[in-house]
Structure formats: C-alpha cells, structure tokens
C-alpha cells in the first residue's frame, strides 16, 4: 500500500458533537485532526465576548477538546489544527497551553498560533490607505455601515498553518481561515507540494471541502436513501487518506455508524458552492468538473481528477455589522380548521399592530405544517395542527420589544384552539448582517508563533 496522510475532521461547526474528536481519534489511525468552529455569525458573537472580557473571544470548548485527545498527541504523533482562535487566537493558544499543563503535560506540547486575519483594529487605517472594502454584491463602499461594524476578518489560507507545522507545532490554532485550508496545510507540510502545483493544491482543498462539515459527508444530513443509513447515533466522522499525487480516499472509522458512498460524498461536494469550475479559496481556484468518484470498498470512496488554477490576487473579507433587532413569536392552532384559524390570528394580530402604529422594516408570517419552508405546496385540509410563526425586524429596539407582547393575548382574545404558547412571547435579539468584500493579499500580514 502506498503511504498516505490521514486527516480526520471531528467538528463542522461550533456546537458540533463534543465527543466526536475523541471517538474519531480512538477509532482510527490519524495523522492530523482538523476542527472547524467558525460560521460567519460566530465571529461577531466572539467579538462581543471579547469586548466584555479581553481574554475571551475564542471557542471555549477547544482547550478541553485538545485534552480529550492528548494521549494521541503525546504518544501517536497526532497533530491538531483548528480555527478555534476566533477573534483571539493568542488567548486561545494560551488557554490550550494552560489546559495541557493542568492535564499534567506542562511544556510537552508545542502550540502554534497563526494571526493576521483580524482586520478590525486596522480597519480605519486600511480605508485611509485606499482599501475601499466595497460590498462584493452591491458595490457600496464600507462607509455606509462603518460605524456599525463589529467584526472584520480576512479569510487567510494555508501558508501560516504550514509554517506553524514546519516549526513543529503539534496543535495549531488560528482565527478566520478558509475551512478547507485546515486540510491542505498538513498535505503541503508533508509532501512539500510546490506553491504553483495548482492541481494538487486543489486536491487538498477539495478533500478539505468534503470533510469540513464533519458527518455531512458520512451519512449525516444525507437525503439519498436516508432511511437505510445505519446507526446515526454512532455516526463516524470523516477521514481522508491523501496520497502524494493528490488522489485520496474518503472513509470513516471501522465499526462506526453512517455511510460513505459516492452519493453521500457528492451531496457534500455540491454543498455551498457556486461555479464548480472556479471554487475560489485563498490557496487555489478549484475545478470540480474533472473529479471522478468511485466506491473502492464499503465506506471507502476514492477521489481523483482534481484540477486547480492560480489562487486569486485578493482575499475575501467577511465584515459583520449590526442591523437592528428581531423577535419571533409562535403559537399552535389545532383541528378543526387549524390553518384557517392560524391565518385569522395573523390577520387579527397585524390589524392590532397597525392600530398601535407599529410598522417594521420586515415582518414575516409563516404557517408551519402548511408550507412554511416550501413555497410550492397546495393548500392542505384536515391538518391536525398548524404552527403560527410571526417575526419582525426593525432598527428600533422599543418597537420590536412592544411586538413581543402582542402575540400571547391571542390565546384568550383571538381565534379558538390555540395552544403551545410558551414561545408566544419571543426574545428580542440583535441582528448582525454581513458585508462581503475583497482585499489585496499584500495588505494582510500573517504571523506565526510556536511554543510549548
């Protein structure tokens, strides 16, 4: 058997299965473990946490996760890469070192920290230097929302992670990077793929794209033949076994639940992509249209044919800004005429809101069970119950707060058969919106520090 590098992914979002890393590491021989924590919205939440406490702003679960796989790091040479650093990778690195010390291995594990993605402290200087950070979708300059910006992060690529591994880091934390770069970095470190070997870099990123959402490629959220996918309670998280030529096999630990099939992997390949000939990442532009997938064995899918073209000159920047407040209230209406009652309740409520002079930037009513998520459903009759869900959004917090008091009274003073009213009074939440922009690569300085 030709030698391969084995990379597992045991976390596709912050809030994913806490026990998955340990199970994956104990279930299969792994060289690297990657964990992705950062959805777009996560960065703004972390920025707010850091504003309250300068030591916060990273995925607090991560130090304990490192400890849960510490035996493998110390005795089997496992190395861990994660974007758990959030908006405070340095603080995250310190917390990891502390947790390792508390676990009795003080100074025995080299922890690398990659920084440079966080543009918030430099934002005004960047604007002054002529980086307009125009909205990629609308073309507007950032000035339109500058005073409401709460986070600004460039998607950095694999280079800093590779440097940390080259310097001997056994655990690497960073902030915002492209998720799949966590997979490409170990491959570049191990195989020394040249910087302009775009096909193999694309292979590494595509391998990362397949596993970056954890169990979404091993049977989780898999529509194809979903009823027959075995043992999701014990679903196996994914592993890629990547050869030096960039071909790889997607698999999962033996004896674990779930399924790795050509179609389960294909569902993940098409997830959250645009043009499949130009899937842009900080490291390479990937072409999916030459990929060939084959079922090499049960729960083993072989992938070859990745192609790449040079990386883009600019990096994507995700900028988060506050955009008012929202609240959602729900009630349930029961048979008979469940949908008609819910619709009448909506009309009554809207008339009351109108009379109170409450107009919102956005208001949306849905009838859950009667086509809330699918817009193309014919009206149903004889439904046993229908959920009535109404949400509003507005710049004025007081208006949204007033709205939350208007739903519950319907139980007593609206159409009959309302129940399930514990959630009638919604919670007012601040809304964060996103401003996608581009920045010249040269404007982003990546810094790497490795120490035990």
């Amino acid at each position, binding site marked *: 058997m030709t030698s391969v590098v084995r990379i597992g992914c045991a976390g596709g979002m912050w809030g994913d299965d806490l026990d998955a890393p340990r199970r994956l590491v104990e279930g299969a021989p792994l060289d690297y473990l990657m964990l992705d924590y950062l959805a777009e919205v996560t960065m703004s939440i972390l920025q707010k946490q850091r504003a309250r406490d300068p030591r916060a702003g990273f995925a607090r679960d991560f130090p304990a996760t490192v400890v849960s796989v510490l035996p493998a790091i110390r005795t089997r040479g496992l190395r861990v890469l994660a974007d758990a650093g959030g908006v405070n990778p340095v603080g995250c690195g310190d917390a990891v070192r502390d947790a390792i010390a508390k676990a009795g291995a003080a100074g025995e594990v080299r922890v690398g920290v990659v920084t440079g993605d966080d543009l918030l402290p430099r934002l005004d200087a960047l604007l002054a230097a002529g980086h307009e950070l125009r909205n990629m979708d609308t073309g507007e300059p950032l000035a339109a929302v500058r005073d409401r910006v709460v986070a600004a992060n460039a998607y950095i690529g694999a280079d800093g992670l590779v440097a940390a591994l080259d310097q001997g880091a056994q655990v690497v934390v960073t902030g915002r990077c492209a998720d799949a770069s966590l997979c490409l970095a170990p491959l570049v470190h191990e195989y020394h793929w040249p910087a302009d070997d775009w096909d193999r870099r694309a292979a590494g990123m595509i391998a990362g794209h397949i596993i970056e959402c954890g169990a979404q490629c091993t049977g989780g959220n898999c529509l194809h033949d979903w009823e027959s996918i075995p043992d999701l309670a014990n679903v196996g998280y994914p592993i890629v076994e990547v050869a030096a030529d960039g071909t790889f096999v997607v698999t999962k630990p033996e004896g674990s639940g779930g399924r790795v099939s050509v179609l389960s992997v294909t569902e993940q390949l098409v997830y959250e992509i645009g043009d499949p000939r130009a899937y842009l990442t900080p490291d390479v532009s990937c072409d999916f249209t*030459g990929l060939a997938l084959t079922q090499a064995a049960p729960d083993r899918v072989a992938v070859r044919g990745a192609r790449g073209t040079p990386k883009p000159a600019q990096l994507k920047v995700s900028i988060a800004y506050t*955009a008012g407040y929202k609240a959602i209230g729900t009630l349930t209406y029961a048979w008979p005429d469940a949908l008609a009652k819910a619709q009448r309740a909506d009309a009554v409520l809207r008339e009351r809101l109108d009379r109170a002079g409450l107009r919102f930037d956005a208001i949306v009513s849905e009838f859950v069970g009667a086509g809330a998520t699918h817009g193309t459903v014919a009206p149903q009759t004889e439904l046993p119950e229908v959920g009535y*869900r109404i949400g509003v959004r507005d710049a004025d917090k007081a208006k949204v707060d007033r709205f939350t008091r208007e739903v519950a009274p319907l139980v007593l003073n609206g159409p009959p058969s309302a129940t399930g009213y514990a959630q009638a009074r919604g919670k007012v939440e601040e809304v964060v919106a996103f401003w996608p922009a581009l920045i010249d690569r040269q404007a982003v300085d990546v810094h790497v520090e490795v120490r035990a």
Partner: protein
Amino acid sequence: MRIRLLDLAHARSGDKGDRCNVGVIARRPEWYTVLAAYVTADAVARHFQGRIRGPVERYELANLSALNFVLHGALEGGGTLSLRTDAQGKVFSTDLLRLELDLPDELAARLSLPGRPS
C-alpha cells in the same frame, strides 16, 4: 409522462450571503441527461417565483451527474436578516425536488424512469 424530480434526483442546499445554492444529483448516472435537458435555470426560477428576488444560474457537473443552481436574492438579504424558518435555505433542496417534469413516454421507458402515468 409526468415525473417528480424527487424520483430522479436527490439534493443538498446551503447559503452564501443572500444566495442559496441547490445541488441536484441524479439517483442513477444515466438519468443525468434528463436533468441536464429538463431542469433548466428557467424552470427553477419559475419554481421559486415569488420567493427569490434575483436570477438563477445553472452549472453542470456531468462528472458527478449533478447540476448546481445558484439562486440570487433568495434569503431576504441573508441568513441572519431573514425571519423565515428556513433562514439559511437548508431545505430549498427538497422544495426543488417537488418540481414536476413532463417527459416523453419513450424517454421514460428507455431510461426506466420511476414515473407515474400522466
């Protein structure tokens, strides 16, 4: 013959800003030709009419027996702004599988499509 897309394909969808992408995958490789010929960007735009504000782009992945649709203006400004249950467009995928295709009986017979008589 009238055939529901669900019987020919499976799908997954997700969000990027105010865009939703729906990847549609033929249940058998030989059925991809039906998707390519009949599930046009126009058909998808009509299916989601009233729910999306922008155009629909279609990309072909013949090697994966799949099509990728990018729906612009699909999420009321974006996942965090949207007040919908499906704020991130996670089930636009199965919504699209409700699409009904009118196919020649001869084609359906030749490809052994699991259709119902029209």
